[in-house]
């Protein structure tokens, strides 16, 4: 059987509350960029091109979290005109670092930061896209991995399953042959509860994992807490480690609230 691609799928890239780092990953795919552009039809991507075509789109790639009333409405509109919707990065998949406001008083922040806080119309929470609309696939990471992104786009074009394992960062340490920093050097590491994706970047540079890719498929955070206690790291530090880019990911959130 042979299949012929009759039409390149149209793709739109959207930004919500985020730093742009994840969508810049698309532009950072230097070597692969031409084949990506050859395989898809970029219909809307303000970061890369001024061309702007209205929907519907075959695929929307969404970066960022929902932090304003306007964005909470806009995402429904995008969903309505997209056949498939993929979220990319910790902001879109877990609420991002800005989800720390979910534990704080946003009006207080606004008063401190802005001369005229009355103009600020921010929600009191930062939430992932999946809290608002149906998401077909979530690509984790702060920032996302370029290789995983290419694989996900490629998987979409070919109608196959993406290669985005949900296991721990420890697997990536062992694949690359990196010595475990927790066992060998008593360095606290989030790797045993964090999803792979970065290629164990931090342990390879002799640092503990910071948890950028969020919780792994079945994290035992209580067991990690025990292991951290053994190397002299107390609960306040564990709570800090859990409350970073993926603070509002359900497993990290629940654990940080338990140990806070």
């Amino acid at each position, binding site marked *: 059987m042979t299949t012929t691609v009759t039409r390149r799928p149209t793709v739109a890239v959207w930004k919500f509350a985020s730093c742009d780092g994840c969508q810049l990953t698309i532009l950072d795919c230097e070597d692969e960029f031409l084949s990506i552009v050859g395989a898809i039809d970029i219909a809307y991507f303000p970061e890369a091109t001024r061309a702007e075509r209205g929907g519907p789109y075959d695929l929307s790639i969404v970066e960022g979290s929902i932090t304003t009333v306007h964005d909470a409405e806009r995402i429904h509109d995008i969903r309505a005109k997209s056949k498939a919707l993929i979220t990319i990065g910790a902001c879109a998949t877990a609420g991002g670092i800005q989800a720390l406001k979910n534990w704080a008083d946003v009006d207080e922040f606004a008063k401190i930061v802005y001369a005229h806080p009355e103009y600020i119309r921010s929600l009191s929470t930062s939430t992932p896209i999946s809290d608002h609309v149906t998401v077909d696939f979530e690509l984790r990471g702060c920032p996302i991995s370029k290789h995983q992104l290419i694989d996900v786009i490629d998987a979409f074009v070919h109608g196959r399953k993406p290669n985005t*394992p949900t296991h721990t960062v420890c*697997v990536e340490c*062992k694949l690359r042959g990196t010595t475990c920093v927790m066992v060998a050097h008593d360095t606290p590491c989030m790797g045993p509860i964090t999803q792979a994706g970065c290629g164990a970047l931090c342990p390879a540079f002799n640092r503990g994992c910071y948890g950028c890719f969020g919780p792994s498929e079945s994290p035992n955070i209580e067991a990690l807490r025990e292991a951290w206690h053994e190397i002299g790291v107390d609960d306040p530090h564990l709570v800090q480690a859990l409350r970073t880019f993926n603070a509002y990911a359900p497993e990290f959130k629940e654990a940080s609230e338990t140990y806070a």
Partner: protein
Amino acid sequence: MASKVVGVREFDSLIPLLRDRGYDVIGPTVDEGTIVLDHVATSADLPIGWTDHHDKGTYSLDKRADEAYFGYAVGPRTFKRWLYPPRQTILTIEHAETGLVFKPEPTADERYAFVGVRACEIAAMEIQDRVFAHDAFADPHYVERRARSLIVGVNCAVAGETCFCDSMGTGPECTAGYDLVITEVVSGERHEFIVESGTDEGETILTELDGRPTTPADRKEVRTIIEDTAASMTRTMPKDETYSLLTENLEHPIWDSIAERCLNCTNCTLVCPTCFCSTMEDMTDLDGRAVRKRRWDSCFNREFTFLHGHAVRFTTKSRYRQWMTHKLAYWYDQFGTSGCVGCGRCITWCPAKIDITEEIAHLAEQTREEVAT
């Protein structure tokens, strides 16, 4: 087979000699604060004067008082990294006029010389042979690499605190499966290597090393070193009891106790020299080619247990139990041997400090108590 006693300077010609014979030499070296296995070019790359200390979830690299070359136990890497690499391309699929063309990946022509291989590691290779070199389902990549590689074993003069090869019957003496085997003697002013060959290739290499003939005293020295090392081991595994102990206790509360502590991080399986689980990753590229790659996986991964849409071993408890019962019981049914060689790596490298020998001892003890009451 032949044997010889070789001094330090003469011994230093071994690695260059192996390289001259076309081998890519893999041996111990210090990196990232650990003694790891990697490519080595000369004796200077070896962990001379270093040793390692192990405990549950703990490793330290320490200075020795002497200049021993092999005065340590085992590190986190295993030789399986080269025989059964973490990633292996299996095949490529391309479009052609006639349809899809499937091209199996040709076997590579590496020729490894593994230096400093411990008895437990030789035993592990022999176990992996049963997995990968099994007639009907042989992996050509493994078979080729294994057949071409040279083994320079070392009789252990130091056991790690987590080693228990003596009770598994896999060490500390290399009894077979080597081309050359070394016993290092370091005491006072004396620093020599007693080298014996086990194959013709080993004997040829040995003739090129300068040294003196071995005496009965040297052979006695080798025995003493091996016996002292065996006697120094504190951990044991009741090898002959694990089959019934595990298969009769599949619903024992011990599995819940372990599951509470286990991170299901996979470290124990990925450092184990016999674990062989893998997954296939199918990659297409945007230019229309497809590549199938095999990569290390682990029974501790929930995703690994997916069968048609759901995970059959959903809980950590079921996955840990799968690992231990497979390793220490069902391997006997499948491969006619235990899956454990007592190297202690899963104990040292478990960040949660779970010790396979301790858990088996607890289970045995609790089972005895239950029978008694």
